[in-house]
């Protein structure tokens, strides 16, 4: 018997929980997001275009996307190294280090922002080391990247770590017994199997970085055309009651988020099909 909506079950509570969930999700998520999208339709295409193509806004898009991309790449490389180390090696203090990797996720973004600003300012612990070389991190675009690296750090590590942990050593042994060097084993056998997790972690890190606000505004100089990120533009427009402008920019950001989510799902489905 083909069931039409719901598979019959003896367990109670379907109606209750379905009702509650739908109500909650509708009120809290659908209506507000719908409100945003509906507001977007208030704009004519030309209004929308005008906001999006405003040079200051364009500059902020470039900065947000660019810095997020760079930070995600840095997190990809170093996240892999950290995940590898935690998954395969034992060392003194490992448990503490392992737990600390989640710090960027547990720490409020504002706290992260002021802490990183303090460290990388020209009189800060690291900033002062770099100043003689003329390298300025805080209050510059480099600062934005640094903050985004912090924010995205756990994503690659935690997505890749379990995959490395579960990787059976027999694959390495098989590859080596067939004559492969360590690098060949890594690049031809290990890395391909880590690809889905790496890509997912990268995408998550990137998505997180795009929307990040709290940690950036303290370490960036927030100057229009130079170091102003997209979320800040939205906040600024709202404080000027420019709802139209804020909505237009916000819609673009939301679209970008959806695209990334879609890509992540696609990666998951693809890798499941190949049962990697």
């Amino acid at each position, binding site marked *: 018997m083909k069931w039409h909506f719901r598979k019959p079950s003896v367990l109670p509570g379907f109606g209750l929980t379905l009702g509650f969930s739908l109500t909650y999700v509708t009120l809290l998520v659908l209506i507000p997001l719908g409100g945003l999208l509906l507001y977007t339709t208030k704009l004519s295409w030309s209004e929308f275009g005008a906001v999006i193509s405003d040079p200051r806004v364009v500059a902020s898009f470039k900065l947000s996307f660019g810095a997020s991309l760079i930070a995600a790449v840095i997190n990809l490389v170093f996240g892999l190294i950290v995940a590898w180390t935690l998954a395969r090696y034992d060392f003194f203090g490992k448990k503490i280090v392992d737990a600390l990797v989640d710090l960027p996720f547990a720490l409020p973004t504002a706290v992260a922002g002021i802490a990183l600003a303090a460290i990388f300012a020209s009189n800060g612990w690291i900033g002062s080391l770099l100043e003689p070389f003329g390298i300025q991190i805080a209050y510059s675009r480099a600062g934005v990247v640094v903050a985004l690296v912090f924010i995205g750090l756990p994503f690659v590590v935690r997505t890749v770590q379990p995959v490395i942990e579960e990787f059976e050593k*027999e694959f390495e042994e*098989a590859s080596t*017994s*067939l*004559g492969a060097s360590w690098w060949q084993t890594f690049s*031809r056998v290990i890395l391909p199997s880590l690809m889905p997790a790496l890509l997912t972690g990268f995408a998550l890190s990137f998505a997180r970085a795009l929307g990040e606000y709290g940690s950036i505004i303290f370490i960036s100089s927030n100057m229009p055309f130079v170091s102003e990120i997209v979320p800040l533009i939205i906040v600024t427009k709202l404080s000027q009651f420019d709802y139209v402008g804020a909505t237009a920019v916000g819609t673009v950001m939301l679209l970008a988020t959806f695209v990334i989510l879609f890509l992540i799902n696609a990666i998951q489905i693809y890798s499941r099909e190949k049962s990697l």
Partner: protein
Amino acid sequence: MSIQISHINKRFDNFTALDNINLTIPDGELVALLGPSGSGKTTLLRIIAGLEEADSGTIYFNGEDTTATHVRDRGVGFVFQHYALFRHMSVFENVAFGLRVRPKETRPSEEEIKERVHRLLQLIQLDWIANRYPSQLSGGQRQRVALARALAVEPKVLLLDEPFGALDAKVRQELRQWLRSLHDEIHITSVFVTHDQEEALEVSDKIVVMNQGKIEQIGTPEEVYDRPANPFVYSFLGNVNLFHARVEQGSLHLENTELNTPDLGSSKEASLFVRPHEINISIDNVLGGGIEAKLIGWRLVGPRVRVELETLHAHQRVEAEISKVEWQTIKAHENDTLFVHFSNARIYTNEASWNDYVI
């Protein structure tokens, strides 16, 4: 290529995995390392391959000391219990792997690789699935691909770690025979590890029986089955019934009966080993010397019948294997006292000496 294993020792923390192992595997032979878990057989195999390092001792390939050679340079083909096929590569790519990772100087051309891989796939009768991925293959197919992959690099020695352990009974049987005929065709020195004595008996030229890090016996399947060197080998290969008895100058006191034996001394405890098919059951003890027993259970196993009895005297369980014809007679008297006789047996006294007992 012959393999010589000389004074190999290996410990893992407090556990002795291998204790002074000495073994020679002649060129072209198919040898089984047989033993229960913890016997050290897999450890020994991995040491031969170079995947583990022995604490002391030497391995020689054709007389050359390879103990310090890295596994990738030893020229061994290793087949893992769970195949370890590279999931993201097709069957073709898997088999070609060993050829592709060769340094430029020794790497064959693309056409040559193609040709070699297809020849191998034909050898294992799987040429038609060259483009499939491991996840699309059955267990038996995967194991054959793993074998082809190991053979592709033309190894001097083939090492297999419980190659059929993860397969269904029927597939296991088929692959066993297939491995044997493959070996007959290509005559590569092969060593495989198994805990399945049936497998070892059926497939190998020689069996090395191992237990707790030591070698118990080395011999052909017949030698090891018919002339086991000690109780462990006896009971590990095939089913066995164990009786406790006393020897008293030429006679063995057992249950309610006395049997004639060679002179083994007097007043000694002894153990009697009898295989199920070496037991005869009579209904009337006409020949004498039968042990009184009653029938407890029976079941058909293919063309034979497994009969379970309990001795009346010492209440010992006895498992016998008889033909269907013999069973008809017994069955008619299933509630009467029956008599157990031995057509062949082995006696083992405390002095660790074996004696045949033949009626």
